[in-house]
């Protein structure tokens, strides 16, 4: 299935915590492909897509970070007005809920790749493909 592994990490809201986490990942030679941070008063959830998900999980586990891995969809959203609206309309039509989404950091002209976390992956993939919307393969996501 063309889904991407996204690792979400619990980050306590404390000075230096985020730096500590990203340094840990960097020192293991892992590349952050993209990330997004959701935060509250006390804590944040850092969601990352990395080039080596399995290694990252092992690293986090060994260093006592709380994390959860989830499958997300990378969509090659056309980089033009209406691009993301069309994708969301297709998902809505299929009666799927988007939990959250964030943009991919990529450098491919004409594309605004976006990560979607949905409550029904199969249906979403089918709906997007039927509209001719392209999906990012894991290889593309991890190694762009």
């Amino acid at each position, binding site marked *: 299935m063309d889904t991407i592994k*996204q690792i*979400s990490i*619990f*980050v*306590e809201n404390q000075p230096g*915590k985020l730096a500590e986490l990203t340094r840990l990942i960097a020192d293991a030679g892992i590349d952050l492909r993209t990330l997004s941070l*959701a935060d*509250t008063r*006390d*804590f944040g*959830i850092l*969601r990352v897509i990395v080039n080596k998900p399995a290694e990252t999980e092992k690293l986090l586990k060994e260093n*006592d*970070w*709380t*994390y*959860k891995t*989830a499958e997300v969809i990378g969509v090659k959203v056309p980089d033009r007005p209406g691009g993301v609206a069309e994708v969301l309309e297709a998902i809505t039509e299929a009666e799927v809920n988007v*939990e*959250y989404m964030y943009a991919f950091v990529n450098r491919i002209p004409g594309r605004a790749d976006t990560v979607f*976390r949905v409550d029904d992956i199969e249906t979403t993939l089918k709906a997007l493909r039927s509209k001719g919307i392209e999906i990012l393969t894991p290889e593309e996501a991890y190694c762009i």
Partner: protein
Amino acid sequence: MAKYWHEDIETMSLEDMRKLQNERLVKQVQHVYENVPYYRDLMDKKGVKPDDIQSVDDLHKLPFLSKADLREAYPTGMLAVPMKDCVRIHSTSGTTGKRVVAFYTQHDVDLWEDCCARAITAAGGNEDDVVQVAYGYGLFTGGMGLHGGSHKVGCLTLPMSSGNTERQIQFMRDLGATILCCTPSYAAYLGESLHEMGLTPDDIKLKAGIFGAEPWTEEMRRSIEQSLGIKAFDIYGLTESSGPGVAFECSEQSGMHINEDHFIPEIIDPETGEVLPEGSVGELVFTSITKEAFPLLRYRTRDLCVLSRKKCSCGRTLIKMAKPMGRSDDMLIIRGVNVFPSQIETVLIEQGYSPNYLIEVDRKNNTDTLDISVEMNPDQFSDKMKDVQDKEKELAGAMKTMLGINPKMHLVSPKTIARSEGKAVRVIDRRKLHD
């Protein structure tokens, strides 16, 4: 102007007091043995018969009662008279479903109110006074206890209950309250509010305050005395032994006289249960020798303190207890509510969190704060913020149900709360309640 409420008792010689206590104790042990199967079983197990108790010197032969016993006997297991002979109950704050319910006959209420009348008199009160009772009314003993004592003395009683600070100050001014009864933290708050309203102690007629139900320091006493322009007196009591008025402070303001014609105090080693000589620090134990409905023998208060028979300048001969200097268990009193760390641990385990937690208690703007830090674990974590927040809310709700107060919850990284080999430090109390 009467200096004492019961001069004969309050200035009685030790010899006469012992005689009175011995008579009452012997009768009380008989009453309890006959009417409280729970305590009879404890005595039988220990091999003690009522006949073995002939005087206060035999007290140590009796088994102890603890809060755990009272919970086990909930609701009526400690009741020593038919329920139809009771006229009232009061109840401790604390865990839902695990409260202690104390019963009172009319006679019990009368004696309790007399104890409070002694406290009011010792604070300089008489029938010319206006007593503002700003303790909570209801199941809590504070409001009703001082209210009854104020009636006995013949004071005009303002049954304000707690809260509504503006109205408290308005009534204090308009009706010329002279004695204030409430928790020390509320007294401090009233003092601050008075000044915030641009008023000074000259704008009110208060001359004394009777404050209890929570620990407070000498420093707090001085600050309250200054802000309200009064003399502040301590009062001690617990629901298990009727309520406030078990002991009260006099003009000397150095420890509280115990109403030992009703309550015989002992100081024990909390570890071994051995009775310690006068002057030792240990756990305070009370035996009620006059209560009819809820007569607890050798009840362990868990309060650590010292007793003294040193001569008091007020003329009272009643033994004095120092301000409790801590607890022999880990109970915290937060906003007047009894909180045990074990309750917090229970909720965490039930909700699937790690039993590694840190409780931080502080007092900000005269209000106690309770912060609980809990380690996030993979089972409770999700990449969806809503899920995490829902679980956090569920946890906070469960805490509120268990503790009766709302703690502030903090989710922290795993393994950040210190673990130690022996006793983990799970509680940090920054309130500095003991000098």
